[in-house]
Every structure is written in structure tokens, then in C-alpha cells.
């Protein structure tokens, strides 16, 4: 098996470099076994950490083909590229995790000598946050770390673990704010790379933000957004006729009705960038889909849930569920990744929620003509990790774009209230993303989230097209050909 390993000797090397090794390993070998083989057969000076060999101690986290993994658990594949975590490097695959460990708070029990008041309920709540093995994969891949003073996902996880513990006497909420609680974009990359699957954004970040909000510690921009939603039911001010004002209650398709869906427009497409939503209606019509648009729908509440200002959430949930339940639809389409993720994960809906790309690919869509230009696709975090939708947008894009170039997913910085609350941090995260986009040499970016769309255009200067708009363009070309 051939693998490439990033080597670095601080005494002799100015820069890290890759070495390729060819070693023999047994069936089912893990990356750690390959590293052992390289050390034993090729170079005894190869430095890497390892201990338990069973995914329990967190020593051996490295990046395999760019993504963090525990070397002892990840099956090795021919051609693997093995690098250290994206943390300060000591030697070869060994990184300096001492600064990260220093960020981890400890229980302050005060004079507690008899903690018999801890309940099974407390244990059940704390346990999911307690499985961290301090491998720091999350820290290595968090986009907010490096763009801010954010202490990182697992440090915040630990704050909430202590916050939930009745034995702990310290104020973990204020500490969490100091550690950068409002810098998390809720992109969920930390969950994706966590060997234990700890849901830090939902179970720690958003919970701590809710407590911070209750104490008035929210960022000013978040407070005014919440006030706007509470007074208007919308997170975007009306400046011109909105989508909902411009469309009928029901849009009948061209030709045969293949299916009927409800359409949840979301605040951004309703009032800030209306055209893509109008384009989406044309795309649905063309594909035989009847669209019912209840006018009583309101903001999904995503900006409130992500920022912790959750007081108004039950009312929003009730109004939205009622709007679509009354319309009698069994499927509701979204075209904003944030709305879709919120309706799927933070609501208990009596109807199915599907992203427009998910639905079109599932039910079949008319092939458009190819639109000239080189296109790349930006995965919105709330679509990729919030809804586990990765392939469908690519299927659509491959059919509509003359040239499609891949782009590895990474948060653009627009989510989690960071763009409104800490715009300079969002811009720094965006700048990293802009570099990645630039490397693709694409002329256009396509995405499925209005927040990403807006932000990516700002940081890259490139035109950003909504998927629906691109499809419609393809249909129009087809018709005029």
C-alpha cells in the first residue's frame, strides 16, 4: 500500500514536505497500522501519537485526505494522504494541543461534599456532552477558529457540560461568551468530524446562547433582528413588493399535474432577493408541480434559534405549521438551506419538508440546455450537514452547466448570526472561502442558500447564481434553440 505522509523536522526543515511510502499491511489495516509499518520498515524517526488503538483516548487524530480522523479507527486505503491536524505543529504528525487543553474548564464544586442531589435526568443531559476524548479534530476543522478569538467547539462543549451540572458553582454562561460563544457559525463541521458525533452546536452553543440571551448578553444586531421578527413576523424589512405579494395562492403547472407541494419562501427570498424565488416557481411549473403558497407563513425562526433569542419561537412554529396544515399539503418545499434545516430539525411538522433540489431529483426533472460558463458549487452548511443533501444539487448543476468544477465544502461565514453580529469575523471566514473558490477558476458560483449567496458575492466579487435561476436559464436556452 502506498501512502503519502507529511513530514516536518523543526531542526532541519523550513517547510513541511510529503514523503511517499510503500508498505505491506494486513487486510482491514487502519491508518495507524500503516504508520507503524512505515516506522518499522522505512523510517524509525517518524513521529506520531498513538495509545489505546480503540478510539477511546483521542491521541492519534490526524487528517486523512484532508479530513480529521482517528488513525486507529480509520481504515487505510491505497493512496491515502496523511497530514497532522490543522493545529500548531511540533514534528511530523505531532501537533501542540497544550493550548487547546488549557481552554478546557474544570468543575468548580465549591464546598460540595455530598452531591446526592444529582439526578438521573442530569446524567442523561450531560452524558452526550461528556463523551469527548479531546482529540481536537473539531478544533482542527472549525472555520471560526483562526478567524476570531473563538476557543473552539470542544471548549464550548465543556462549558455547557459544566453549566448543566448542579455540582458546578461557576458562571459558565459568561465564561462561554468570553470564549467566543457568538463566533460559531453553527456550520456543524465539528459534528461531522467528531469521532463521538457530539452535537456541539445544537446541544451546547445554541443552549448557552439561549441562556446568554435571557440575561441580555445577546449581540446588539441580534437583539434588533429579534425585535423586527417579533413585530413583523419577518427577519427582513419590506422595501419593495414581496414574493408573497407578487404570486397567487396556487400556481398551476404547465401540462399534467405530477405532484402538489406547499412552498415555504423564507424571509430572504420573500423580501431581499425575490427573483430566484420567482424563477423557482417557473422551474416547478415546467416540471409539472403544482405549488400552493399560504400567505400566512412567517419567518421560520432560524436566526432566533441560532442566536439563542428563542422566546418567540413557539409562536412562529405554530403559525407556520398551521399555514401549511390548513393548505392540506403533504410536502413543503424550501429553497433556503437555513429554512429547510430549521423546519426539518427544529420543528415537529405534520408534513414532509424537502429542499427543492432534493425534490426535483427525486421526482425527476426535465433536462435543461447547457448554460455556457464554468460553474462551481458551494455547499451551504445547512443543506450539507443540516439536511445531508450533497449529491442532488450536483446532479442538477451537471445537467445545466456547460462546465462544472468541484469545490470542497467549507463554511463561508454567513451563518449562525455571525454575519450580522460579528461582520468582521464573517468576512475573515469568507476570505478563506474566496481563496478556495478562486482556485477553481470558475466564472460563477451556484448555491442553494440566500445567506451564502449574498455573502459569497461580497467576498469573491464573482456572480453567484441560485440553482433555480440557473435551471430556468437552461430551460430558456432550450426553448430559444
Amino acid at each position, binding site marked *: 500500500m502506498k501512502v503519502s505522509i507529511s513530514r516536518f523536522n523543526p531542526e532541519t526543515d523550513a517547510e513541511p514536505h510529503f514523503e511517499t511510502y510503500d508498505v505491506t*499491511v*494486513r*487486510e*482491514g*489495516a*487502519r491508518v495507524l*497500522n500503516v504508520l507503524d509499518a512505515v*516506522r*518499522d520498515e522505512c523510517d*524509525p*524517526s517518524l*513521529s506520531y*501519537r*498513538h*495509545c*489505546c*488503538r*480503540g*478510539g*477511546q*483516548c*483521542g*491521541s492519534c487524530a490526524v487528517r486523512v485526505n484532508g479530513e480529521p480522523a482517528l488513525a486507529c*479507527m480509520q481504515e487505510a486505503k491505497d493512496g491515502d494522504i496523511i497530514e497532522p491536524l490543522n493545529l500548531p505543529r*511540533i*514534528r511530523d504528525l*505531532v501537533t501542540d*494541543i*497544550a493550548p487547546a*487543553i488549557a481552554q*478546557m474548564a*474544570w*468543575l*468548580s*464544586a465549591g464546598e*460540595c*461534599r*455530598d*452531591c*446526592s442531589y*444529582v*439526578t*438521573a435526568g442530569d*446524567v442523561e443531559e*450531560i*452524558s452526550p456532552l*461528556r*463523551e*469527548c*476524548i*479531546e482529540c481536537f479534530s473539531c478544533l482542527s476543522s472549525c472555520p471560526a477558529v483562526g478567524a476570531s478569538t473563538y476557543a473552539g467547539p470542544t471548549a464550548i462543549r465543556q462549558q455547557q457540560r*459544566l453549566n448543566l*451540572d448542579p*455540582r*458546578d458553582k461557576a458562571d459558565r454562561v459568561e465564561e462561554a461568551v468570553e470564549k467566543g460563544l457568538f463566533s460559531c457559525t453553527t456550520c456543524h463541521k465539528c459534528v461531522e468530524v467528531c469521532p463521538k458525533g457530539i452535537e456541539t452546536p445544537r446541544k451546547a452553543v445554541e443552549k448557552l446562547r439561549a441562556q446568554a440571551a435571557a440575561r441580555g448578553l445577546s449581540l446588539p444586531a441580534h437583539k434588533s433582528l429579534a425585535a423586527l421578527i417579533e413585530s413583523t413576523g419577518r427577519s427582513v424589512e419590506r422595501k419593495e413588493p414581496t414574493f408573497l405579494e407578487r404570486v397567487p395562492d396556487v400556481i398551476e403547472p404547465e401540462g399534467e399535474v405530477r405532484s402538489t407541494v406547499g412552498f415555504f419562501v423564507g424571509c430572504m427570498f420573500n423580501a431581499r432577493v425575490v427573483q430566484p424565488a420567482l424563477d423557482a416557481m417557473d422551474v416547478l411549473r415546467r416540471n409539472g408541480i403544482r405549488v400552493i403558497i399560504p400567505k400566512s407563513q412567517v419567518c421560520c425562526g432560524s436566526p432566533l434559534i441560532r442566536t439563542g433569542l428563542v422566546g418567540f419561537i413557539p409562536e412562529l412554529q405554530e403559525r407556520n405549521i398551521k399555514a401549511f396544515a390548513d393548505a392540506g399539503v403533504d410536502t413543503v418545499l424550501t429553497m433556503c438551506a437555513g429554512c429547510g434545516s430549521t423546519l426539518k430539525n427544529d420543528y415537529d411538522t405534520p408534513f414532509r419538508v424537502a429542499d427543492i433540489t432534493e425534490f426535483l431529483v427525486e421526482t425527476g426533472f426535465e433536462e435543461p440546455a447547457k448554460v455556457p460558463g464554468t460553474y462551481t458549487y458551494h455547499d451551504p452548511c445547512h443543506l450539507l450537514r443540516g439536511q445531508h443533501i450533497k449529491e442532488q444539487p450536483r446532479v442538477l448543476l451537471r445537467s445545466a452547466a456547460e462546465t462544472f468544477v468541484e469545490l470542497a465544502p467549507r463554511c463561508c461565514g454567513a451563518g449562525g448570526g455571525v454575519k450580522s453580529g460579528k461582520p468582521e469575523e464573517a468576512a475573515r471566514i469568507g476570505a478563506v472561502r474566496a481563496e478556495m473558490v478562486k482556485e477553481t477558476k470558475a466564472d460563477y458560483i451556484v448555491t442553494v442558500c440566500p445567506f451564502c449567496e449574498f455573502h459569497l458575492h461580497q467576498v469573491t466579487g464573482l456572480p453567484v447564481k441560485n440553482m433555480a435561476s440557473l435551471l430556468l436559464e437552461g430551460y430558456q436556452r432550450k426553448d430559444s434553440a
Partner: protein
Amino acid sequence: MGWENRTDCHVLVIGSGGAGIRAAVEAEKYGTVSIISKTITGKGGCTVMAEGGYNAVLSDADAVSVHFEDTVKGGAYLNDAALVEALVSEAPARIRDLFNWGAVFDLTADNTIAQRPFGGQRFARTCYAGDHTGHEMVMTLLERLRGSNVEIHDETTVLELVKDGDRVAGAVTVDRNGELGLVTADAVILATGGAGQLYDVTTNSTAGTGDGYALGYRAGAKLIDMEQVQFHPTGAVFPADSRGRLITEAVRGEGGLLRNIHGERFMEKYDPARMELSTRDIVARALATEILEGRGTSSGGIYLDVTHLPAEQIEKRLPVMLSQFLQFGIDIRCEPMQVAPTAHHFMGGLCITAQAETTVPRLFAAGEVTGGVHGANRLGGNALADTQVFGRRAGISAGKCEPSAKSVDAGILSAVEEKISRLYEGDTAVSSVQKRLKSLMWNNVGIYRNELDLKVAEREVRKLQGERLRITSPQEIAGACITENMLCTASLVISGALLRRESRGAHTRTDIKQKWEASSSPFGHTWFVGEKAGIDIVEANL
């Protein structure tokens, strides 16, 4: 470079598993403490990997005296009574320490600490946090440690203990960059864990190389019962490189069944009363016998089956097992695991008093590096309790030592330097010696032993000790010295196995027919001090 890198503390703790951290936080009450570990603190020991649980008498329906009897019976009556007494009487207080420090153990519906049955015990007294009990303990201890003033030295390996006259007075260390250092201390605590890594197939972390046995032995301390190596009955068999990975006893505690290739619950033949929840020595021999006699699977395993249990119970009580097996392509909710015995725990080690004193002044020890607590076979759940009870005791005893002026014997420093310069001129790869040692120990000094195999092993280890280890960079110093420690420890295991001419607990001599039961054995501890070794005779049983 060299000895300018010198620090001093009141108590030096070597090893950062459960016993080491517990000792350090206790010793800190008496003065400055440094904790040194060859891994990142908390990650290296076997505590963090311990899955099943912690034995403590917490219920009125249970009794400390019953825990004592279970432990001694399970230990084939080779245990030191004073140590067992300390273990069983103090285990409840030490789990309460952990609980007060923030441990998140599973609780019952009425909010008391939940307990489950484990092998060889007449009461369900094993406390747990799912199947990651040791991880929970280490995280709790780490929080405690991080909130203390203990100085933490990660990835620093102790090469040799240093003495001032007959007392231990510190240690020579090497850090991850290969820099040598000297730490002087009024007292030193060895909490370096066991040596499962002497074997080809083991549950142990890669840090389980027996350094403490070798360090203590070279410092002149007495060791006992080194032949008593527990083979855990249930280690993984696939993939090949993960062979030996621990499948927790909690799987059987929760109701898992052992079956051979014919579907027979063969434990009926070996221990019909206790079946799957017999003691580890008996279950391990049963599995080894079934496999040797051709009733194992094609990959050399035995089925361990939980598919009859509700999926929810597996998900909640055995989440680590479930996810580990899923990563290797097996859903234990729907298909049986395959398991085989694996080297697990060293019952032998440094001879200590109930106050955790070794036979060398100012040297203390706690946890798996010690002998006598578990006799000839350890009960599941007693090791985690051992780390806390004796970790604290070692911390107190070491902490109470009077401060002393330490004049370190310069000879040992130059000896270390000379040894290192020789390593650069060696000709044998460290990995090659380790591989040969591990397969030798597995083949010749495993579950079933006989004099011929042991003699061969003795000769082969001596040969390996004669080879000249080679290093190419300063970062390899630690690995080479650890390999020497492994060879030293292996020689003690073999020597003990030859000395103990009986089958007792985990030690089985197929070449010896004996008339006695363990309870009336004429033999006591095997022991090792410097060049001398022997076996105690119990006059009353002669």
C-alpha cells in the same frame, strides 16, 4: 542539553492513568507535585480505556466482607489480605470522591449510583458510566488535576530512577524531542500500569510496556507474582491488526452469551453454576480450550452474542462496543461478535504495604504496577477501584515524607548518557526486538504454560537482551529504553512462571499435576529482588 535541565519537587508521580492522577491530586495537599507521563496526560494509561466498571459496596444488601471474600476467592487465595481489606473497605469512599468531583456515572431511577453484575461476584456491585467508565473517571480526574497546582509534564519518559544512598530521590527523564532531564523529589510514586504490550495480542494501550516494573526492579524494589498475567476472555479477532482489542465484560454482565461453532453454550462444561459470569481465568481457559480443540470459528474466535437483548439496552449500556463494531462492519444488535482471549492485566508487580510503600525507601506505587491486591486473578471492576484506593494512599504516604537534601548519585547520570551514545552505534531495530519478544511471549508464556516452552522463552529473551538496539534520532531514545524495560519485565514473568510449579489463578502449568486446591496451596508469592528470586512456602499447607 544535559543536566542543566533539572527541576525539583516534593512528590514526583510517574504515570498518568487513574492511579497516577489520583495520587498527584492527593499528594498536592502536602507540597509541590510533578506528574510525568510518556503520553499526553490521561491518555496513556489503561484506565481511560476501561469499559465495564468500578466495584464498590454501596448497598445495605451487600457487604464489604462479601466483596473481600469474592476478591480473594477470585484471586485464588494469593492476595495479600491487608491490601484486599484496604481495597474493599475504601472503594465506596473513593467512588464518592469521584462523584463529588463531577463524575457522571449512570444513576438508577431513584438517583443512586447504578450497579451491574460482573464475573465472580455474588452481588451486582459494579458501578459504571455506560461502557466508558474509565474514560469518565479519567475526565473527572483530569478536571481535578487541571484545577490543581500539580505541574504536568506530557510526553516525557522516565529512563531511570535515581537514588540518594538507599532512598529514591528522583528520576532521569527524556522528553519528546530527546532532551534529557533530571527531576529530584523527596518521594516518587510509580503508577505506570501494566505490561500487556509484552504480548502479541493484548487489550493494553501502546503505553502498557511495564516500565514501572523494570524501573522499580532496577532500583532494588521487591516484586511479586510476575507470572500472574490475566488473559481477558473476550478480545476482538478482526481485523487482524485490531486483534486483542477489549470487548468489555459488561457485554456478559448485560446478558451476552458465549457459543462455540456448534452453537453450544460451552461454559456449561467449565463452570455450570456461573456460566458466562465465571471468573476471567476460567472463562479465558474455556475459550482457549474450545478454540484449541477445533470448536472455534474459522478466524479463531468464539461467538459472543447479544442479539437476544433489546436493541435499546445495547445502545444505552454498550454504546462504545456498538460503535466500534459498526466501524468494523458488524452490527452487534443483529449478529454475534467473535472473540478470543487477549493479554489484559498484570496481577503481579511491586510488593507494597497497605500504605502503598514499596520495599525501597521513598518509593511508592499504586495501581497495576503493584502486586498482591488481586492475587492470581483479578475480578472485573476491581482494577478501577484499585487505582483510586491505592492512588490516594500512595499520594498521602509520599506527601508525608520529610523534605530532604537530595544529592544524586552522579554515576547514574553518566551511565544513562553512555547508554544513549551506545544506542546510536547499535545494529538492531527496536521494532524488530519488540516484535520477536511479543510473539515469543504469546506463544511460550501464554494461557497454557509448560517448563520446556518457558525455558526456551527464558533463553530467547536473554538473547534479545544481548542484541544491540539501534536508534537514529534523539526522539527514539525513549522507545529503545522502553524496549529494554519490556525485556526486563518479560524475564521476570518467565522466571515467575518457572518458579511457580502449580496452576493457580491465571497461571496454568500443563506439565504439572497437583493434588491441592488453590485455597490449600503450599505456595505463596513468587518474588524478585535484584539477582535473587524465589517462591514463598506456606508451612501450614505443606
